[in-house]
């Protein structure tokens, strides 16, 4: 029967009882994939990735034609740190990508919950066999997966490409830890950002206000951290700034040195966990209230 001539009839199919949270996450990503601004932002992020792919390829070309480069006067390229494939390259990639990922997460997440509230969709969703836990998990998963696919995934692929080009097991044994380090730093970038954006979205009834609120919190916390550290002449106060805490964890993951390594790592991790737990609690509370009103 052609689909347009079908009408209401008894449903006799089977119903899946689990993984409804994945349906929520899938729908969220599906919706995002239709938005032009989102596509534009992702394209910029991909161009950034492409730039690093080129560096890795150039590095390999240089490595296999060193003599030729030296003769043509391009031997100085070995001195340019930015063109060397090492842990610092991965750290720098993630550090710059974090800004783009943050923007994309704000765009993607600021309306994720608030729009459902504004459009009265919560009542419809929760009248179906969907719990507030499924809903919360689905929304969080969508954003975290999106964020990791823009940060951790390219980093891991760069590592795979680099080792594939080297075809040297000794090198792989020496640099395998760049993979987990990338995932660790990417998680430190993505998870708090995703949860904070969703928390703002759960509290606000406007996508725009939620986005502005997250920006304000980030700017305010950074400013306050720098001011406190300067006034009290103690870099530990930079812990108030979430971006600096994230950066501190990135430095630790890739064994890099910098001004921020003066911040205590344990405190930084604690701060990040506190931010995540608080944001998650806000999301759970707001969403649960939509399912269990009184």
């Amino acid at each position, binding site marked *: 029967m052609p689909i347009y001539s079908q*009408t209401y009839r008894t449903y006799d199919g089977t119903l899946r009882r689990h993984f409804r949270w994945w349906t929520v996450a899938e729908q969220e990503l599906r919706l995002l994939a239709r938005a032009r601004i989102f596509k534009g932002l992702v394209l910029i992020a991909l161009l950034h990735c492409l730039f690093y792919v080129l560096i890795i390829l150039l590095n390999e070309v240089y490595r296999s034609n060193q003599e030729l480069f030296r003769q043509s006067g391009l031997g100085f390229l070995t001195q340019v740190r930015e063109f060397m494939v090492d842990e610092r390259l991965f750290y720098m990639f993630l550090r710059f990508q974090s800004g783009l990922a943050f923007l994309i997460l704000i765009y993607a997440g600021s309306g994720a919950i608030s729009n459902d509230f504004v459009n009265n969709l919560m009542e419809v969703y929760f009248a179906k066999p969907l719990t507030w836990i499924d809903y919360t998990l689905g929304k969080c998963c969508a954003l975290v997966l999106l964020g990791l696919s823009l940060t951790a995934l390219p980093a891991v692929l760069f590592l795979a490409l680099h080792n594939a080009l080297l075809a040297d097991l000794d090198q792989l044994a020496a640099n395998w830890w760049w993979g987990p380090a990338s995932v660790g730093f990417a998680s430190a970038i993505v998870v708090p950002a995703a949860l904070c954006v969703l928390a703002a979205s759960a509290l606000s009834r406007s996508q725009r206000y939620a986005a502005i609120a997250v920006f304000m919190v980030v700017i305010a916390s950074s400013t306050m951290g720098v001011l406190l550290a300067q006034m009290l002449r103690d870099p530990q106060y930079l812990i108030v700034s979430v971006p600096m805490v994230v950066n501190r964890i990135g430095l630790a993951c890739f064994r890099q040195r910098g001004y921020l390594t003066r911040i205590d790592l344990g405190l930084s991790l604690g701060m990040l966990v506190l931010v995540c737990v608080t944001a998650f609690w806000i999301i759970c509370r707001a969403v649960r209230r939509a399912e269990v009103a009184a």
Partner: protein
Amino acid sequence: MIGTGRRMALIELEDVRVAYGDLVALDGVSCAIEGGAVGLLGPNGAGKSTLIRTLLGFNRASSGRVSLFGKAMPRHALEVRLGIGYMPEREVSSPKVSAVNFLTYCGRLIGMSYLDAMERAHEALSYVRLGDSRYRLMETYSTGMLQRVKLAQALIHDPKLVLLDEPTNGLDPTGRIQMLDLIRDIAGRRGVAVLLSSHLLPDVQHVCDRVIMINNGRIVQEGRIDELTTPRDDLFEVRVRDREAVFCAALDRAGMVWKAERGGNLIVSPGNGAGTSEISNLKSQISEAARAAGTHIRHFRPVRRSLEEAFMDAVGRG
């Protein structure tokens, strides 16, 4: 209680109390609904929506027992919700997707596979007569189209019970009739139990055969509409063959009160302060007046109490 008690009740409420802080929204509500189309009538703020939300498990009863399909709520909320379709009162829209995509998502939330959900979405949208506009983004829909989508999403999984909260809100007269016809079809031909909450009495009368009247969080009246609108023994609809003026004069002389209606009928009642004997003799007095006027009665029937009167009586008592 609504129902005969022979079959298992779809909905059972026993001394249910729901409060929002200090405000008691439902107070000692008890009823049982077996099936068919049941209207939930009450003025604004009576507790109709709270009752529906309690059935869905959104509001938790502070005391009493709520069960649907024999399963206690909210403990078995997920199982129960598989058998319920809910059309909320407020406008629902997913602006950036089409109705087909929205319904497919709803179907998948219930647990259908993508293909099943897509197929069911088309079926439900065809049923509510949403044509090619189902492919347009929902932000372009009129109120009537959004109401149809709301109904379709409630039906997508073929529920045993549909809870409709003010389904004709914001609809023009034609849209309203179409919506009510759809609901009547669901309850009639499709055999789905319908609980229709409304403060519009004609809507309820158009669709339902039973009503529950609620006021100030309490059930004040319940039963079949034809039982609640029983014929009155103190009010008759009369039409005579000819000599209507003489007949009216005879009624006046007998101390009866009459009122001419459109269509040539007279509504006749005993005068003010009439006792029981006058009321019981009303039929013979009208016959006597016709005889005295030298005419014949062509139409004679007791006036039925309207649902509105029954409602006003009940709400007044509440």
